[in-house]
């Protein structure tokens, strides 16, 4: 049995709802959609029981009616699993994972800034990466967001001293 099959089997045993949803793309690359209510349990299980101790990145996705949050967990052996959870666009709220993966702080702040997702439990801190004078309720990575002149103000070169 390949390493990928082992991981899939272990996961399906613990969370039967995965049976259909895990996709093996190639060596060391697994993908799965996870229901929102199961996500925390799955993440803890991966971290505590299966050696997926690295959180490589959190990717925000704009999928129309929902926002996707794609968590990539890795094992030191190189195995990667991408877990996607969808949260509704009208109520973009999700939980922070800084207790389990402290490194997720900046990734979460980034998504909060760029997509407007609120992370419950994320301590107040300096914003990242948008500028301090960025207007509220402008989330540049949402698909319906277009750079407005007010934001991308490109004042012409006033005078070029030569």
């Amino acid at each position, binding site marked *: 049995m390949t390493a990928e099959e082992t991981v899939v089997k272990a996961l399906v045993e613990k969370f039967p709802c995965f049976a259909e949803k895990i996709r093996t793309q190639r060596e060391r690359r697994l993908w799965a959609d996870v229901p929102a209510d199961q996500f925390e349990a799955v993440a803890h299980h991966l971290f505590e029981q299966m050696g997926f101790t690295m959180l490589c990145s959190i990717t925000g996705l704009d999928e129309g009616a929902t926002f996707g949050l794609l968590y990539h967990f890795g094992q030191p052996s190189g195995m990667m699993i991408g877990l996607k959870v969808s949260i509704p666009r009208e109520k973009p709220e999700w939980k922070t994972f800084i207790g389990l993966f402290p490194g997720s702080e900046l990734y979460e702040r980034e998504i909060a800034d760029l997509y407007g997702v609120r992370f419950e439990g994320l301590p107040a801190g300096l914003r990242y990466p948008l500028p301090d004078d960025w207007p509220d309720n402008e989330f540049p990575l949402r698909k319906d967001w277009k750079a407005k002149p007010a934001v991308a103000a490109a004042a*012409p*070169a006033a005078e*070029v001293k*030569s």
Partner: protein
Amino acid sequence: MKYPGRMLGEVLAHLGAKPNTIKYPYEPAVVQAGLRGKIKFFAEKCIGCKICEKDCPSDAITVNKLGDKRFECIFDLDKCIYCAQCVDSCPKKALTVTNEFELAQLDRHKLRFIFHAPDAPPAPAAQPEPPAAKTA
């Protein structure tokens, strides 16, 4: 063994040696043969397909049709990132890279570089239109 002044020997040896510094700009720079510098345009080869414009990552090249099979090409040297993708993309090899890199100017306007089309064939003495003003 640890001791302070570990580099003493090396440093003293270089004190008398010829410095590593090149003579530029008093002597011309020695540049690598494949250096990607300013792009050069051959008007006679161009067919006006504008693939170069489309692939340019930084909106630095503009090809204008002046008349029948006559094209001029405008480079904004202050926008070009000298990636030579346009050279790779051009189906007619109407563009090449040169290794000219000393492009500094005090006046930004001088960084717009125009390769003019060859003079129009004498018959229709139509005055070519001025290039469409690009948004600055």
